[in-house]
C-alpha cells in the first residue's frame, strides 16, 4: 500500500448509470498505481463545503481511477455536474482495504456498495475466481451488473421488488452459496443492516468475512476521531477509525 497524496486531478469521463447514479473517472496515474481494493478517496466538492466527501474506489485501469456515486446532497450534486477537463482536488488513496483478494472470493454488495467491490473482484480474478451477489431496491437502481458479469464466474442479482433477478435480499443466494463451503473469503459492502446479516450468515457457515463500513468523516486520515465505529478484539472494545483502521474490517471484530 503506497502512501496517500493530496493533489489536483483532471476529470476524463462522466457517465450517468441510473437516474441519480453517476460514474466519474479521473486521469490520476499516481493514485491508480497506489490504490488497493476497499480503499477510498476524499474529494473536495467545490469551494463552499469545508469537508471533503469520501468515495470507495470502484475501478482502476491504465492510470485512470473511477468512483461511482449517488447524488445525495450538495457535494455529490456538484460532482455530478462535472465535465471532462474539470480539475478536482483529491486526497487518497486512504484507509485499509480488503486483505483477502486471493483464492476463491465471494463479493456481496448492497446498492452502491457494489461499486468498490468491482475493483476487488478484478483483483481477485487475477489470482483465482470470483462470484458476486448484488442486491438492489429495483431494476432501475441496478448498476454495474454488466461489469461484474465480465469479471465473475457467476453473478446473482436480487431486488426487493422482484423487478430483476431474485425477489428478496442478498441473504437468499448467499446462504446457498455458503453451503458449498468453497469460498476462501466473503467481501461485503453496503448498508449496515445488510453487512450485519452477511456477517452473521458467514459466521454460521464458518466463512471468513470482511466488511467495508461507512461513517461521517472529518479529516479522512485518522487524526480527528470523528469517524469511529465500535470494534472488539480479544475481548477489548475500541473505538476504531473507519477512515484509517478501516473502512474494511474483519466482520467478527465489528460490534454491530
Amino acid at each position: 500500500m503506497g502512501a496517500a497524496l493530496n493533489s489536483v486531478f483532471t476529470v476524463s469521463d462522466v457517465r450517468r448509470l441510473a437516474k441519480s447514479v453517476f460514474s466519474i473517472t479521473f486521469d490520476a496515474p499516481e493514485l491508480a498505481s497506489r490504490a488497493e481494493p476497499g480503499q477510498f478517496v476524499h474529494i473536495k466538492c467545490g469551494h463552499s463545503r469545508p469537508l471533503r466527501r469520501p468515495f470507495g474506489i470502484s475501478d482502476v485501469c491504465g492510470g485512470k481511477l473511477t468512483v461511482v456515486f449517488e447524488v445525495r446532497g450538495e457535494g455529490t450534486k456538484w460532482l455530478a455536474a462535472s465535465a471532462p477537463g474539470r480539475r478536482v482536488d483529491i486526497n487518497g488513496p486512504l484507509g485499509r482495504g480488503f486483505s483477502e483478494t486471493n483464492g476463491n472470493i465471494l463479493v456481496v454488495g448492497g446498492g452502491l456498495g457494489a461499486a468498490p467491490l468491482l475493483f476487488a473482484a478484478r483483483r481477485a480474478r487475477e489470482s483465482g475466481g470470483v462470484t458476486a451477489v448484488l442486491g438492489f431496491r429495483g431494476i432501475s437502481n441496478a448498476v454495474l451488473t454488466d461489469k461484474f458479469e465480465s469479471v465473475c464466474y457467476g453473478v446473482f442479482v436480487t431486488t426487493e421488488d422482484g423487478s430483476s433477478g431474485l425477489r428478496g435480499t442478498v441473504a437468499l443466494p448467499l446462504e446457498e452459496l455458503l453451503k458449498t463451503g468453497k469460498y476462501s473469503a466473503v467481501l461485503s459492502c453496503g448498508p449496515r443492516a445488510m453487512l450485519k446479516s452477511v456477517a452473521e450468515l458467514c459466521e454460521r457457515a464458518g466463512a471468513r468475512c470482511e466488511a467495508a463500513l461507512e461513517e461521517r468523516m472529518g479529516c479522512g486520515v485518522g487524526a480527528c476521531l470523528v469517524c469511529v465505529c465500535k470494534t472488539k478484539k480479544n475481548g477489548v472494545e475500541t473505538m476504531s477509525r473507519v477512515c484509517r483502521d478501516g473502512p474494511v474490517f474483519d466482520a467478527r471484530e465489528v460490534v454491530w
Partner: protein
Amino acid sequence: MSRDSHNIDMKVTFAGIEFKNPVVTASGTFGFGREYAEYFDLSELGGVCTKGLTLKARQGNPPPRIAETPMGMLNSVGLQNPGVDAFIKNELPFLKKYDTRVIANIAGETAEEYAEMAQKLSGAGVDIIEVNVSCPNVREGGMQFGVSARAVAGVTRAVKRRSGVPVMIKLSPNVTDIAEIARAAEGEGADAVSLINTLLGMRIDIKTRRPVLANNTGGLSGAAILPVALRMIWQARRAVKIPILGMGGVTSGDDAVEMLLAGASLIGVGTASFTHPGAAIDIRDGIAAYMRENGVAAVSDLTGGVEAY
C-alpha cells in the same frame, strides 16, 4: 530556519519558549502528528498540539460525531484518547524526533487531576501544557471549569504548582465576559492563554427530526467562527499582558495575519487541515508572503498591531 532569503524573521518567543514560526496545529485536529507526517515534515511547523489527554483512557461519545455547517463543522468527539501514560510511552517519542515544539493539551474532572497530568507531562519533556477548561463535549470538567472565573483560577493555581514547564489556559468562547476569565488565569500565574475553543452548537435532521450528532450538541469550528475568534482575542489582548495563542477559523495566511493583528502571538490551525492536509504549511507561507509584500521584518511586530477606532 527562522530567517529566509528575504530576511524576514518568523521566530516567536512565547512564554519564554522559542518557536521557529508562529504556526501550530490545534488540539484534536492533528492527532499525535503521525497521520499528517505522511503529507509534510512536522519540523516545518512552529509546534504541534496533541489531542486532549485525560488521566485514564477515554472512549469518547457515540457516533455520529460530526455535522457539516455553512463554512464550518460541529464535532462531539468527547475527548477520546489513550490516556496520559500511554501518550508518554507510545506517542511522545515520535513527536520528539521532530524539530518542533510539543504542546500537550490536558483535560481533567478535578483540579487535582489536571495538576497530576501536568506534572507527568512536564517531566516527560513536553514544551508547554495547554489546560483545556473549555471542552463542550464532556459532562464532567471541561467547559464547566472554563465558564467560571473562580474555577479557572482554581485549576490554574493547581496546575502551576505542579508543572515544570509554562502553563497556557485554553479559554472557552461560551462565556459572556472573556476578559474576566483571562484575568483570572493571569492572576494565578498562567504563562499564556489560548483561544478560542469551539462554540456550542446544534443541527437537526428535518427528515427524522433528530439531532445530527448522537451527543445532540457539539462544538462549532472552521471558517465560520473566525470573526468571533478575532473579537475575543482582541478583547483578551486588552485585558491581560501574557501572550495569546489565537485560533478559530483560520484558513489562510491573510486570516492568520488578521489574528496576529488582533493580538495573537502564535496561530493555531485546526479544521483547515481537514480541508487541506497541508493547510498549516500554506498558512505559514501565506504569513511570510504578507510580510514580504508589506515590508514587515519580524512576525512578532504584527502582534496586537490593529489600530482600533
